[in-house]
């Protein structure tokens, strides 16, 4: 066997790039990133595969590069998934404590968790993650482990992230078609949060926003547990598209304009400021108004933030984010994002850098890699909680089942 059992690979099939990151667990249980492979993604729109063949080709490139840099053979991956169909909600289960002395035992805990998992989803949906939150015993909230406590009614909140079964199958099938096993699928937003947030930040309350090319994922942590997660199928591609439409330029030129001149706030720009576009030969072909460019772009980015703020507001979570907002993904390179975020959320905004994995090369500290590193992190947590008799076969047969961890 070439593959040492402690190699963990995170594979993110993004709208603009496909990224495979290889991590290694040291004997002491510390995670080390040892390799990375990237490829341009061609067959993905809004986070979901639209052309499996070219996606397969791109994945092959990314995996091959990762294998080369890490010098391992990749047999299985933790696969990141996203898409507008993915939603998160909290489900509560309860269980009466029946023992004579009213002492909660391990069986009661198992039972209450089982009850909380009995959720009513649309028939075509399936659970990606169900993450245990705090226990409630006779109305007393915030209990981390109720075993040996005394009470009559035990409740538990479970955060359930679910998505459309068929649409989740697409990336899995593509990866499996390449003779690579999928250890488990991971919601990208969860991955980003795992790699960005420290335990203290989770405890204080934090919002993670991952602005990708096709989708924007977000996740909220308070009191150390995940409270909410969601996906907006709007991302950097939309900014480009708006610019192409509004300024009447091609998509590729809009992309370049976005990167070079774009910002999330209009700021002080003179109305008559223009940007000269040049052809391949360096000849001027067109001038566009800088004010218009900024206006179009700022409105789109602002809308993304506003939609998230609105969603959190309805869930009543906006006041619990004491650690602030963390932004990751390619979209976090937008200038002025911090200013805009502070205006919309009234919270400090940090451009996310992976901080939960030690010893990262600076190349990997870019916000674009946050999600993929988070997938590796997720894998490392999985391996840590694996029972001794764990075998690969179990999860492969049921890629959706049994993923149960504390984010």
């Amino acid at each position, binding site marked *: 066997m070439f593959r040492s059992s402690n190699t963990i690979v995170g594979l993110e099939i993004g709208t603009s790039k496909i990224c495979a990151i290889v991590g290694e667990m040291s004997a002491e249980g510390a995670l080390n990133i040892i390799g990375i492979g990237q490829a341009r993604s061609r067959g993905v729109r809004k986070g979901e595969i639209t052309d499996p063949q070219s996606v397969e080709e791109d994945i092959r490139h990314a995996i091959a590069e990762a294998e080369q840099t890490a010098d391992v053979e990749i047999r299985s991956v933790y696969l990141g998934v996203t898409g507008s169909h993915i939603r998160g909600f909290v489900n509560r289960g309860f269980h009466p404590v029946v023992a004579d002395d009213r002492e909660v035992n391990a069986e009661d805990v198992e039972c209450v968790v089982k009850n909380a998992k009995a959720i009513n989803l649309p028939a075509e949906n399936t659970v990606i993650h169900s993450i245990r939150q705090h226990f409630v015993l006779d109305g007393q909230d915030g209990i981390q482990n109720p075993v040996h406590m005394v009470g009559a009614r035990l409740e538990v909140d479970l955060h359930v992230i679910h998505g459309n079964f068929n649409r989740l199958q697409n990336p899995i099938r593509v990866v499996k078609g390449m003779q690579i096993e999928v250890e488990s699928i991971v919601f990208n937003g969860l991955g980003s949060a795992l790699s960005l947030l420290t335990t203290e930040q989770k405890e204080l309350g934090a919002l993670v926003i991952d602005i990708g090319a096709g989708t924007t994922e977000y996740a909220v942590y308070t009191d150390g547990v995940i409270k909410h997660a969601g996906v*907006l199928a709007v991302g950097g591609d939309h900014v480009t*598209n708006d610019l192409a*439409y*509004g300024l009447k330029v091609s998509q590729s030129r809009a992309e370049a304009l976005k990167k070079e001149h774009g910002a999330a706030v209009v700021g002080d720009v003179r109305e008559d400021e223009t940007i000269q576009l040049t052809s391949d030969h360096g000849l001027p072909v067109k001038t566009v*108004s800088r004010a*218009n460019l900024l206006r179009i772009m700022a409105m*789109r980015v602002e809308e993304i933030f506003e939609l998230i703020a609105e969603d959190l507001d309805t869930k009543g979570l906006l006041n619990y984010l004491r650690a602030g907002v963390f932004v990751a993904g390619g979209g976090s390179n937008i200038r002025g994002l911090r200013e805009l975020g502070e205006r919309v959320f009234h919270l400090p905004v940090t451009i996310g850098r992976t901080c939960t994995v030690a010893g990262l090369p600076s190349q990997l500290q870019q916000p674009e890699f946050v999600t993929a590193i988070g997938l590796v992190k997720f894998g490392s947590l999985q391996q840590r909680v694996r029972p001794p008799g764990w075998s690969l076969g179990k999860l492969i047969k049921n890629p959706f089942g049994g993923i149960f961890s504390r984010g």
Partner: protein
Amino acid sequence: MNDSSFTGLSALAPRTLKQLVIGVGGAGGNLAAYLQRAGVGEARVIAANTDAQALATVDVCDRVLLGDALMRGMGAGGDPERGRLAAENSLDALRAALAGVDLIYIVAGMGGGTGTGAAPVIARLGRELGALVLAVVTLPFDFEGGRRRELATHGLHELRRESDGVIVVPNQKIMALVPDHSSLPECFELIHDYLHQGVRGIVRLISEPGMINVDFSDLGAVLRGSNGASALAHLESAANGPADDLMEQLQQHPLLDEGQVLTGARSLLVSLNCGPEVSMQEINRIMAALQAKAPTALINLGVAVNAEMAGRIGLTLVVGLDGEPLETPELPPLESPARGRRKARRDDAPALELDTEFLPNTNRTEPGRQRFLAQPPALSNQQAMDMMLTAGGRRGYKDRRQVRKVVQGTLPLEIVSKGRFEKSEPTLHHGENLDEPTYIRRGTVLN
């Protein structure tokens, strides 16, 4: 074929609200027959056509043969001017058919002869008789050619001026909805079905009382101020999650331009037909979504509770748009018939006499004989001049070709492109399509 056999109409009872669907022309007749078959509540369905053969095959309550004296039931030959003349020639029969009706639905296909020419005449007559006239018309397929579209556009303008409201269904738009391999009848079936749902929805909202009632006058209020530009749609939700399902359908409804129509709405008549157990919450959600889509519109809500609709909600929307002010469109060749009409209105009989005298000549000639008729005998210069002005439809081939050069088509304004997201699933959020640029949805003007 005797005129009277087609027009035997009973006297109408004045107390109840009389609604009448009249299919004009070939396409209109087919649609009328479909409506009759599928049922449109209390409305009576009749058909009017210049083509006796086509008319005879249409299965409706009553039929009016137009311009029997002029065309001998042979059809208008795709010439709207002849369609118009035929209708004006049969005013009496039409008047008898429309007498006492309160609400007339004219269904017609624009772009041919009879539908395009006669429908505006019927609309005007209906209004003269005191009825509210709602026209539901189809526009030709793209493959039917530019000339036909031109005629259709002009007919539509005329109709807008003559009726209280016009609802337009471009056939092409519906064609985009049917699968590639579907047959012509299937395509027409779909078009008919969309129109049928809409018309039936209106008939029902007017004739059936509701918990929150909307009636004839509300409909009139929505239609009247809009210069004849309006849209009509009927949606029915699936059994579970009615509100969301409705909003989804609204986004995809071809008659509402995927919901875009609502943005420019001036007034909105919303009629909900729902089961007894529907929650206030559901209604609230639907209305909130509509309000968000049409923030400036005056919304008129009607709710009817119907045991049949258990668990579902039917939504009929009549949208009054800000129609462009109704001047005669700048279409020189087609301007003259309108002038002719005004003249004809002033003194009906002589103008018609002139027309009828002249018509048989062009109508019955065999192909070769036309040349001989180039110089009409026994007409003074003045008379010839008049005729040129009053009877635009009889222009020679050459004239028409010239016309074609002058007419300038208008490009549809403001097609919001979704760019690279054109083909992907739309990102909908509270009824907004997030794929469209934000600045457009928020109405920011760039300079």
